[in-house]
């Protein structure tokens, strides 16, 4: 590492990037080898040694106290005390420090804002400010863009550039190729715990991806044009609240046809999660209707919806998708354990479960030591494959995949994408919700963009990225300016005329005021 350099560390999930950085930050002890700082070997016993040596780290999951203010969080761990005996916290000084740092590096944060009120991008900025107040020379950013919107990512890259201009070095861990190319001065690719190559940012995406996975991968999804059939899923005027009883889905209409992929794009938190949870019967539908193959399914239990032929890959696999302590085999039957051949009456058939698990593991290339291993011991990509294998191994009418490749390595992404397309080609209606625009563009035959609980537009996959990006930010292009709702319903199909009537007034009216 050189001063004033942005060094990108690129690698698949589980390649050892985070482990390496945790060693640098003193969280893990190295078994062998040494770390050199300014030519001197460094022995780190813990993060405090690392901070003393001028190394700061921004973790993938923020280490902030949600109910504290920005200034309080920044001083946490290095509290300044006023008065020798009284031991009062010197908040004013902490505030001043925050203001100073944020001004110097052009990182706008309000020292008195409470963390939990801030958007994720700003919270991350607070983490960076926190590291900078400790006077670090080397800043480690562990997958900083994983949680950011495209706009926030842009801002972060700008911040990184200004830090670089101030002579700070940055290690930037990621597996997103685009960002690496945009910002890095030097790229080190790590695979299976070893450095496999150093590249210049001028290297092409394909070269970098090949270095990462060790073979050439296709980043674009290879597929035939869709042959849409009859509508399978019809959502009309759907209104859903989120956990805080705030309107999350505000009059959504959409249709998914058999044999097509509808991609739902949008920055996270614009109602996509609530939309699919409502379809799956996991969240009460307040108004509107959900129709599956001509049958109204809103108000059904999740089990009934699944039984009706819906496959569902939930957004957060570790929370909603898998029981980590359960074995791979058990997770593979998590939603069909009570159906023949796996269960009959009250009794389970372990042999049938084991046999089917063996087949699935082979079929879906799940890398596990055995079918009896706890699923929590698998890597993220393989955990995701377990879910996909489970959902795709029964006959489906509709397949809903939310963030199907989040935190998954490139090799598994490719595999999961090909499976999704194969499911489409056998005539299943597919709905893919993703905050990765590339994924949506690559998979979808039609793209619906969600913004503030509404579908702001439905466009074809050939639409330029920029236009979709603007839609994601809530800006409707003048070309389709007539009305966002009309833009929604008209391309879907003409047969859903009755739904249009009910849906139209709702989103037009109080929707936006509600949000404001």
């Amino acid at each position, binding site marked *: 590492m050189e001063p004033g350099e942005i060094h990108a560390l690129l690698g698949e999930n589980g390649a050892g990037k985070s482990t390496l950085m945790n060693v640098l930050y003193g*969280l893990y002890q190295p078994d062998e080898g040494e770390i050199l700082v300014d030519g001197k070997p460094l022995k780190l016993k813990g*993060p405090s040694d690392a901070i003393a040596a001028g190394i700061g780290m921004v973790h993938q999951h923020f280490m902030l106290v949600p109910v504290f203010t920005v200034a309080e969080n920044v001083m946490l761990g290095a509290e300044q005390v006023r008065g020798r005996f009284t031991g009062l916290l010197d908040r004013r000084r902490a505030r001043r420090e925050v203001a100073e740092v944020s001004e110097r590096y052009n990182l706008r944060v309000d020292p008195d804002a409470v963390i939990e009120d801030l958007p994720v991008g700003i919270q991350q900025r607070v983490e960076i400010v926190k590291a900078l107040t400790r006077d670090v020379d080397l800043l480690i950013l562990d997958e900083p863009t994983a949680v950011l919107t495209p706009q926030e990512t842009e801002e972060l890259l700008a911040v990184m550039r200004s830090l670089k201009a101030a002579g700070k070095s940055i290690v930037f861990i990621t597996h997103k190729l685009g960002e690496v190319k945009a910002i890095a001065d030097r790229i080190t690719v790590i695979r299976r715990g070893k450095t496999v190559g150093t590249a210049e940012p001028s290297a092409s995406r394909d070269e970098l991806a090949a270095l990462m996975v060790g073979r050439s991968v296709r980043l674009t999804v290879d597929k035939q044009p869709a042959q849409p059939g009859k509508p399978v899923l019809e959502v009309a005027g759907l209104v859903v609240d989120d956990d805080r009883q705030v309107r999350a889905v505000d009059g959504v209409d959409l249709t998914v046809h058999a044999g097509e992929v509808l991609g739902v794009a949008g920055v996270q938190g614009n109602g996509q999660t609530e939309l699919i949870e409502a379809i799956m019967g*996991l969240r009460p539908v307040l108004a509107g209707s959900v129709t599956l193959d001509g049958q109204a399914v809103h108000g059904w239990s999740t089990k009934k919806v*699944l039984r009706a032929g819906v496959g569902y890959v939930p957004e957060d696999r570790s929370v*909603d998708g898998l029981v*980590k302590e359960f074995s791979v085999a058990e997770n593979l039957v998590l939603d069909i354990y009570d159906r023949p051949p796996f269960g009959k*009456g009250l*009794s*389970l058939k372990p042999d049938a479960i084991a046999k089917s698990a063996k087949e699935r593991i082979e079929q879906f290339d799940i890398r596990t030591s055995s079918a009896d291993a706890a699923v929590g011991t698998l890597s993220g990509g393989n955990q995701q494959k377990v879910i996909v294998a489970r959902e795709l191994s029964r006959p489906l009418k509709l397949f809903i995949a939310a963030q199907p490749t989040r935190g998954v390595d490139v090799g598994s992404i490719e595999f999961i994408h090909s499976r999704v397309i194969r499911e489409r080609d056998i005539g299943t209606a597919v709905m893919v919700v993703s905050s990765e625009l590339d994924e949506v563009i690559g998979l979808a035959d039609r793209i619906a963009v969600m913004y503030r609980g509404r579908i702001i537009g439905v466009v074809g996959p050939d639409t330029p990225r920029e236009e979709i990006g603007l839609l994601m930010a809530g800006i409707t292009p003048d070309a389709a300016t007539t009305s966002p709702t009309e833009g929604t319903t008209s391309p879907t199909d003409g047969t859903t005329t009755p739904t249009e009537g009910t849906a139209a007034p709702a989103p037009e009216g109080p929707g936006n005021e509600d949000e404001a």
Partner: protein
Amino acid sequence: MSDVNPVSGSPDKEPATEAQEARSEARATPTAPAGDPDRAVPPAATPAPGKESRPTLGKLFLDNLWAANTVTVTVLAVLLAMLVGAVLIIVSDPEVLSTYSYITARPSDALNASWTVVSEAYANLFKGAIFDPDASGFTAALSPISETLTYTAPLVFTGLAVALAFRGGLFNIGAQGQATIGVILSAVVGFALPLPPGVHLLVALIAGALGGALWGFIPGILKARTGAHEVINTIMLNYVAVYFLSWIIIQSGVQNPNRSDAISKPVESSAQLPRLLGADLRVHAGILVAVLATWFIAWLLNRSTLGFELRAVGENPDAARTAGISVTKTYVLVMVISGLLAGLGGSNMVLGSTANALTPLVIAQIGFDGILVALLGRVKPWGVLLAALLFGALQAGGNRMQSYSGISLELVTVLQALIVIFIAAPAMVKAIFQLRAARAARLQTSLAKGW
């Protein structure tokens, strides 16, 4: 029995007497509760020095046993608890304590006295729980085992009740209350309904089970419908049940008309669990029902769809819900089955040989002991059975220890508590005995703090 050396060799830092005691304990009591683990160590240790090719294999086996085996940890926890117990015995005996006042002048006095009192206490514990070598005749020889099994039976039920709830993600503190309702209904059916033998017993058992199930259903439905926490509600229902028992005993029709104190009419003999080994030995069919229940719960948890739902909800309710499992229904069912088991535990207390009438303390502490049994048994059905056996043995042996050595029965309670504490802190036990895994465990805990 030279093979105990590897077991007791490690607590070097203890005074010499205690190391000796440890050895004697290793020889005496622990063989009782965890018979197989203790037997599992010797075969590996003994052939090791004998044959030339074996040592590596034997050593490997031993290493593994030390490192990760929960059985080892359990045995070591029992040993540690007995060591602490030995200190308590010494400290609580004024005569022995007085010899310590001149320990520098004549250390042998203090050591001998300590040795005598401790070894005698533990020998009596052993004799009361498992086998008395001096006993003559069939009945006397089997009496300790009979006592142990009598105390074990109800603990199996309450232990299973708590363990099952645990696996379903619920902390059922209410086994005590559920057992109380169970004992009330069983007893009332037992003395109030004129039924033929056999049927009478069956109806009494079912009544107890239903009573417990009802007392489990209430916190279950409250949790499912309103999210009210089951810990609070089960604790509160414990009080309700206990005071209901005190009240119902003195009602006319329930209270024994020939007595002025709080005791109910006796249960008819037609409703009593048959004794297994003749009228002189107290062991009754309750232990058979307990083993049957253990088998059933083991099947339910591992081989049934309901058990699959229950475990899924227990480990990750969100994923279970997403997979279409009704979490609320499962919570209610878990609490009902858990209460049912605890209720059966209560039935055992009045339909067996422990008592035949209701008194305010008729079920003793079986509900709360059930929590300890479940923890000690690692919330696995067969583990619970073994743990209940250990607790039953301690109880039975403790009775003899009290009457023969004059050491109060509370020591047994202390021993039980210590065992569970040592189990609950396996890392500590491993660290004390310098097990290989201890390093890994420490690493893990420090990491957990770091994150």
